[in-house]
């Protein structure tokens, strides 16, 4: 079914996950389109990060099926490396870049351009890094060059570098795990601009955040996760930020009431 007519970038079918007796995810069915930005929202402990870890190969689901670009994934052999080879890249809040290293090294670490003896072609790496900074992510920081160390960048710029790197390496699906936590408003804005670049480049993205405002600005569709279940999938066109906010609040309250009764 998946092969014909623009398969989804990612599809999860009946995914279940138990940690011991804890039912972390139940009956997860979702898909991400080829060029879709999906906002994954939910409260702390809703299962967002468990879901991400399953699709990036860190955790193995207890049962269910995973399709990447229409191909069924052999979950027994699925790990971070194979996820990379399938074109799934994850950008974390703080675990993506070596702070004391230069930008050009950060772009290529682990996938260096080398000669046969493993010596790095510095000139070529720098040239490509410069191109990524200018063209792919539109980086125009003051006085920042490929020779700058990451420690000189602001939080938003760091996320930009990580996103640009993922795009350069032909990621089909970029997972952003809480990319704006602990950033100032101006920096958040920068990150959102980078997410727009993902859309423009025709790639897919899962944007995880509980800052609803940020998600609303960039996402095409929202998936709401609560206590390990998908409780809603809402197209952006069918809702406003206010409605979505009210929905989430009501939902949280509704459940709270249920629990108390």
């Amino acid at each position, binding site marked *: 079914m998946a092969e014909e007519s623009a398969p989804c970038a990612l599809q999860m079918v009946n995914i279940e996950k138990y940690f011991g007796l804890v039912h972390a995810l139940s009956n997860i069915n979702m898909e991400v389109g080829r060029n879709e930005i999906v906002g994954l929202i939910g409260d702390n402990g809703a299962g967002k990060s468990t879901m991400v870890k399953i699709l990036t190969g860190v955790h193995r689901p207890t049962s269910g099926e995973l399709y990447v670009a229409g191909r069924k994934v052999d979950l027994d052999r699925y790990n*971070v*490396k194979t996820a*990379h080879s399938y074109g799934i890249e*994850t950008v*974390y809040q703080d*675990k*993506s*870049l*070596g*702070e*004391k*290293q230069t930008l050009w*090294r950060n772009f290529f*670490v*682990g*996938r*260096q351009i*080398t000669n046969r*003896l*493993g*010596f*790095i072609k*510095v000139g070529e790496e720098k040239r490509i890094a410069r191109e990524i900074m200018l063209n792919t992510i539109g980086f125009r920081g003051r006085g920042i060059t490929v020779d700058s160390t990451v420690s000189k960048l*602001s939080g938003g710029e760091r996320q930009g570098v990580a996103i640009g790197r993922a795009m350069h390496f032909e990621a089909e699906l970029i997972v952003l795990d809480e990319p704006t936590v602990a950033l*100032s408003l*101006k*920096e958040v804005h920068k990150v959102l601009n980078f997410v727009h670049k993902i859309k423009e480049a025709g790639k897919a993205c899962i944007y995880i955040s509980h800052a609803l405002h940020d998600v609303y600005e960039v996402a095409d569709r929202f998936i709401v996760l609560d206590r390990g279940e998908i409780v809603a999938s809402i197209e952006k066109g069918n809702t406003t930020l206010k409605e979505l906010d009210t929905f989430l609040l009501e939902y949280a309250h509704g459940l709270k009431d249920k629990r108390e009764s």
Partner: protein
Amino acid sequence: MKRARSLIRLLGKIEGLPVAVVFVILIIAFIITAPDVFLKWRIYMSFLQTVAPPLILGLGLTLVITAGEIDLSFPATVAFAGYVFTWSFRTFGDNMDPTLAALIGLGLALIAGGFVGYINGLLVARIGVPAIMATLAAQFFWYGVTVLLAGGLQAALKTIEDNRVHSVLTGRIYGIIPDPARGRIGIPTQALWALGLAVVLWIILNRHKFGEAVMFIGDNPNVARVMGVNVETTKIQLFTLMGVIAAFAGVILTLEMRVFYPTQGQGMLLPVMAAVFIGGTSMAGGVGSIVGTFFGSYIIGSLEAGVVATGISGFWVQLVQGAVMGGSVVLNTILGRGDIAVLSDRVRQWGIPMRAASREAPSSDLGT
């Protein structure tokens, strides 16, 4: 002020410059205070000879510290490798070509050092023992093994002086340095080997993907892992390399002395570490300077002889050493940041933990 700042920034970009400047100042100071000694070639040739083994060790240790690890076992490796070399030479030397015997000895010593380092690497990377504990245990263990094997005795290498391996590794090159008493002052070849090793390790650290992996592991092992660096394998390779390098230093030391001492290398731990740190290699890992270690080793190596030669009491040696080390590290910190403002900020916020102070800077930046 602005020009001074940009000049400092520019100077900070040249690797190892601060410590090179300290070295030059030191030599000038020695020339002024002890011209009789320091205006002659002999003292410098003596430095080239004595600094070579600790320099070789420091170069290897620079990579280890850049990876955020530490190796305390290299003094024992120096002794162990010296023993293996001496034993091989004395055992095989009688029955075969002495050059071949010395080469076999060299090969076995390097393998022995690599083995010591490999075990260190396994303990650290596979089992997860902190490097400081694993290599401390290794230091005791391999030193103990050496003393046991040697029966606590030193062993002379009688015929080694005529050996080709001896003249290639620790011979003298005559005729380059002006030398009135012919054949007395030559350049020690071990200094050239150390220089060559420095060049090779600089290239590996700065231009090879192994070196890049080392830097990222020292910076943040989680990032390195996520980016596809094989952290465990790289660490094992790194400790093995350190073992081989320490063994090489051990063989050089034994050849130069023409005697193997079971205690050789003991006492080198702190000077070698000091040389690496004053060279600007970060104790926190992630940043390492081969050029810095090179000059750092020469600073440490020339201090004692220099202070004694100035004619002041030998009791001053340690005090001067401490002062020079402290001064170098401070200079490195200022110039390495490329911004003198950082220092004045620090001085102003004296007493506030550095981490908190440096976190404050970007947030005030965003507020504008």
